């Protein structure tokens, strides 16, 4: 919902979200360094710089896992929607944690020498043909470069400039970055770590990310089995009472975009399920302040015309609905984006002709 650009598009909720995540991140780093200092003493003592490098590295990995899990978790249960809101800021925070990790490591291990610290990343003591000597830092560098691309293009300007489709494709590179991060840890920290905790946590994290994506994918797949014929003149999509008040519900139509149905006040409205912002699932959202609100980033639309409230300009397609008796009927042909449609209300004289099969 953009009428003008600012450095960071904060609102009250996003500021609270960011402050909480920042506070938790700093608490984690401080706790990690303090705990490690207390546990490892005398001969086993580890320098504060190395502990800071590890703390920020682990923090970045934890944040990356959270970011990767947020999407599928939200698809599995709407209860997780609040953590999806502002995910981009979390991504930028994760990039800075990774950047601090890389910067400290580069300074600590490579600075103040004759050779460039960057040169040591690639050659020096490394052995490209051995597992234990493989230059794991390069994997980290590749991951950091990808995360830089994503963080630097996270502003809403880039979404508009690149178009949502290209922007989304670019940001799918997070999975490649994740693969590089896993290799970075496997060829790096795991080669010298004797305690199984790190390996266990890494495997558990990867399995969790993978499993959540599979489960949410299966959940997405189920409704499309119930898809109905798009060429039917009117499609019966259920009883009026099947649609909860002020909550969205998704209807699948064969070979077409899904439709988001909203029951608000006395009427029922139908909109495209695809948010104009980042193609978020509007039907998984709800009515907030009289507007359909996308669960991903809070973009809003009037239910009766698919238009964002002024001064915002986003528009999405609308659909015709009518109610016969207690049945809700949908015309599967979408109207052009922003077309006003009167919400369907209960009719006193129901008729049953033209109704497509369910």
């Amino acid at each position, binding site marked *: 919902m*953009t*009428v*003008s*650009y*600012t*450095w960071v598009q904060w609102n009250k909720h996003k500021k609270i979200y960011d402050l909480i995540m920042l506070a938790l991140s700093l608490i984690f780093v401080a706790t990690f360094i303090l705990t490690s200092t207390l546990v490892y003493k005398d001969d086993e003592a580890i320098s504060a710089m190395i502990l800071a490098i590890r703390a920020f590295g682990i923090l970045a990995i934890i944040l990356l896992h959270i970011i990767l899990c947020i999407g599928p978790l939200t698809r599995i249960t709407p209860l997780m929607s609040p953590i999806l809101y502002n995910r981009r800021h979390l991504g930028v925070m994760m990039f800075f944690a990774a950047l601090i990790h890389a910067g400290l490591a580069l300074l600590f291990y490579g600075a103040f020498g*004759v*050779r*460039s610290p*960057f*040169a040591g*990343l*690639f*050659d020096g003591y490394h052995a490209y043909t051995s597992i234990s000597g493989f230059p794991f830092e390069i994997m980290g560098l590749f991951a950091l470069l990808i995360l*830089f*691309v994503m*963080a*630097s*293009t996270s*502003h809403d*300007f*880039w979404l*508009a*400039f*690149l178009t949502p489709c*290209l922007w989304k494709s*670019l940001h799918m590179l997070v999975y490649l970055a994740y693969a590089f991060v896993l290799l970075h840890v496997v060829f790096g920290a795991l080669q010298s770590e004797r305690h199984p905790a790190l390996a266990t946590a890494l495997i558990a994290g990867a399995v969790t990310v993978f499993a959540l994506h599979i489960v949410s994918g299966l959940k997405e797949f189920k409704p499309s089995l119930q898809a109905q014929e798009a060429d039917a003149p009117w499609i019966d999509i259920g009883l009026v009472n099947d649609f909860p008040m002020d909550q969205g519900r998704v209807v699948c139509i064969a070979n077409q975009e899904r439709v988001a149905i909203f029951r608000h006040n006395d009427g029922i409205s139908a909109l495209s399920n695809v948010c104009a912002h980042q193609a978020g699932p509007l039907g998984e959202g709800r009515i907030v302040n009289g507007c359909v609100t996308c669960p991903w980033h809070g973009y809003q639309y009037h239910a009766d015309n698919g238009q964002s409230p002024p001064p915002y300009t986003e528009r999405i397609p609308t659909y015709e609905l009518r109610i016969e008796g207690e049945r809700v009927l949908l015309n599967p042909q979408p109207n052009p984006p922003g077309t006003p449609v009167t919400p369907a209300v209960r009719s006193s004289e129901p008729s049953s002709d033209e109704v497509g099969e369910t």
Partner: protein
Amino acid sequence: MMGSCVLYCGIDIMTPASIFLILLGMYFAVGTVIGLVFVIIGIRKIDPVAAGAPLRVRFIFLPGTISIWPIVLYLWRTKLKAGSSS
């Protein structure tokens, strides 16, 4: 390895790794030049919302331009053509 001739920022220029680093540095250098032109002048002609934003705000787009400047160049050209034809 071709000896230890240190030619570029302490990197032996003859190794594949150093060539990669030099290319990476050149990519970011070119991106910085293009990015500066883009956020100061170019962006105003293709994005009306960005045109209304002060320069200090438009500089937030500089890192993004540096990171994906080939895509920016392509879209910049496309949008300029579309704008002039309409």
